[in-house]
């Protein structure tokens, strides 16, 4: 079947890399809570943990879905790799706390899928009708409400991640 215009669009939001000491469990909990607070259905697709001489290597993949409307479904994909995870004890504000020294990589991508329930699915004529509908009737709605809206919404998650990791460049215009 021919591809329908803007049927499923994936946008890569950004890559965050860091090397330092962080509360890894708190970090993962913060991201999960952010997704759940914004009404996403959260799933952990993959969790790999491998013990190396340099430290533990963790690979985590998360997917979160949100049915924004009957016609649009938003997905946020998070891929995280943490290398050389070593537990360390740090004195912060006069208290001893357990943190993790690690090198982390976080990739965030968002996908907007239109017609997830395949209402236009079936024959070529319906697909052509859907293609025409996307190109000439609801193109502006797709681009400005769904795609842009989802992208900037995911940027807020990226900002939350940078704030938790205490990045210098966590500020933004909005």
């Amino acid at each position, binding site marked *: 079947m021919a591809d329908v215009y803007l049927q499923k669009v994936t946008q890569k939001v950004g890559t965050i890399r860091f090397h330092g000491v962080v509360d890894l469990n708190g970090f993962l909990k913060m991201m999960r809570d952010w997704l759940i607070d914004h009404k996403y259905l959260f799933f952990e697709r993959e969790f790999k943990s491998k013990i190396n001489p340099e430290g533990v290597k963790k690979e985590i993949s998360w997917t979160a879905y949100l049915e924004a409307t009957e016609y649009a479904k938003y997905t946020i994909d998070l891929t995280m790799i943490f290398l050389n995870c070593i537990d360390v004890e740090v004195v912060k504000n006069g208290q001893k706390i357990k943190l993790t020294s690690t090198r982390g990589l976080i990739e965030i991508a968002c996908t907007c899928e239109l017609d997830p329930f395949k209402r236009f699915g079936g024959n070529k004529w319906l697909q052509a009708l859907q293609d025409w509908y996307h190109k000439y009737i609801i193109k502006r709605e797709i681009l400005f409400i769904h795609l842009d809206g989802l992208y900037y919404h995911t940027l807020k998650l990226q900002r939350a991640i940078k704030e938790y*990791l205490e990045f210098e460049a966590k500020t933004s215009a909005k």
Partner: protein
Amino acid sequence: MAETETIVEDRKITYEGLFSVSDLYRLIDEYFAKIGYDKVEVKNVEVVKPEGKFIEIRLEPYKTITDYVRYVVSVRIICSEIKEVEIKRDGHKLRLNSGKAQIIVNGYLLTDWEGKWESKPVYYVLRALMNKYVFQPITGKYKGEIAQNCEQLVSNIKAFLNLYRY
């Protein structure tokens, strides 16, 4: 695949001394938001090293002008040996960063960014001919705008960094 033309190539600003990384990032972000560019943060790296933090940020904001033309400005911010310092200015304590910063700005003009004129060889040839003989006065105006946007950004960054010299 869009046709990319480089308008501004490797416009560099190098600075060493006191400044605020977060304010610098906010300045660049606000500038692009003000002139109507969409935010794209490709990479954000922060590594804590013994000599200070190493920060690398890559931004590629874009502005869609028509369904054929798009402006893209690539900004790379590389900061090294970044340490937090506290200074007193006018009786107030200010938390700033001290270290080295290099900002590299590139400006690109993307034509046929949707890839509509590449599906067939005939379209590709038509596109090349139109770009070369018909659209030249129009793309000239677009090139001027990108160059102006990049120069204004560079001026703003220089003015911002100059504030911390005194």
